[in-house]
């Protein structure tokens, strides 16, 4: 990856307020979480204490707590509580590393790589989440398959195309070599039948992509 890029991490719907999830972009481990006010955050998935995964922890209000020794971090990434030393005024210098994070088009996005100034924040039209799906296939295989669809365009990490069930906007997340996640959205107003048909389209694509790899 060259330069700064916005990469989709999850469908916004799938990260409920007060929850966290681990994910990866090109092997970089990221925790994506939403505070109880509804704001999304993307951080390095590494507790500053002993390096355990923050995504194994839990969200408390606007803090995320590490599962292992309970250190709590505020939304700015600053450690605010060390349970083993309840009387300690925690120095403001213990920090989790944060990615630029935004929410648009029904997805949560992070600016990669870590520590870069986020470029212009993308603004996508409103969309309805369909599903996220993980494919054990390389990025090029998956991109080629998406580009085979009607009116397909890939710009940055966003693919837009028309499948038989309507227009799709798909966030493409390279997890690691040989694994790609697609965050699939469609236009507002789609019925449950349509959403299920799009799921079937996505699962068929996954079968085909993985067969390509096996072949």
């Amino acid at each position, binding site marked *: 990856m060259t330069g700064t890029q916005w990469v989709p991490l*999850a*469908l916004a719907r*799938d990260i*409920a307020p007060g*929850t966290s*999830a*681990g*994910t*990866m972009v090109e092997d970089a481990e990221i925790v994506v979480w939403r505070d109880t006010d509804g704001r999304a955050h993307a951080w390095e998935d590494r507790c500053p204490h002993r390096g355990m995964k923050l995504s*194994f922890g*839990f969200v408390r209000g606007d803090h995320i*707590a590490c*599962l292992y020794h309970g250190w709590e971090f505020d939304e700015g990434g600053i450690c605010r509580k060390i349970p083993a030393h309840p009387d300690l005024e925690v120095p403001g210098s213990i920090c989790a590393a944060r990615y630029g994070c935004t929410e648009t088009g029904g997805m949560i996005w992070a600016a990669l790589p870590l520590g870069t100034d986020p470029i212009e924040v993308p603004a996508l039209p409103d969309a309805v989440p369909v*599903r*996220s799906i*993980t494919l054990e296939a390389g990025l090029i295989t998956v991109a080629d398959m998406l580009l085979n669809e009607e009116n397909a365009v890939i710009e940055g990490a966003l693919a837009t195309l028309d499948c038989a069930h309507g227009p799709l906007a798909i966030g493409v997340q390279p*997890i690691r070599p040989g694994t790609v*996640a697609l965050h699939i959205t469609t236009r507002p107003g789609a019925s*449950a039948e349509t*959403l*299920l048909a799009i*799921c079937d389209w996505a*699962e068929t694509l996954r079968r085909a992509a993985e067969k390509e790899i096996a072949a």
Partner: protein
Amino acid sequence: MSAPLLHNYDLDEDCYRARLVAACTGVALDLRNVDMFPGAEHRSDAYMRLNPLGTLPILQDETLVLTQPEAILRRLAALDPERRLLPEDEVIAARIDDWLAFWAQHLAVAKAAREIALMATPGDLAALSARTARMLRVMEDHMTHQTIRGLGFFAGPELTLADLALFPAFALSRDHGLDHDAFPALRLWARRVRLTPGFITMPGIPDYH
């Protein structure tokens, strides 16, 4: 009538399933903790007489001695006068049967993977964990579709025995190195399962509520 007796080992996921079903149905359960590891008490003469397979859990209830996890869960759920985990509806009941069979036949790989990882029992961890990932994917696809249909659980709109039978394999998958990244629908489902009145955890399943 005395409460059924569960011969239990806290770290065993099938024993946890039995405790979980009892807890979520309010069925009273007597526990006898067995020194499975390192004592191998479940292979003692007394236990081999009770269960020649030498496995846990074992449920003793009146004249019954049950050794198969699925039968144990069904028995406990049937003891609940409200039958809240086993609804009458025939279609839902058929779906519960299907998912219980899926658990017993196809998801057993998850338990095997976890035992290799935690207890260093012999076996091909990579292969079993990969197979578990395949099975969790089947579950993920199903719960994705259920959610679109407006159904929050495996067999229908309400929690059933199927959900409690399937839950531990997902919740414990990190014990054998399988993260939850690729399973957003199962994450949200697990969160709903955790909200069940009476829900309990076991070591390896964090209790953060």
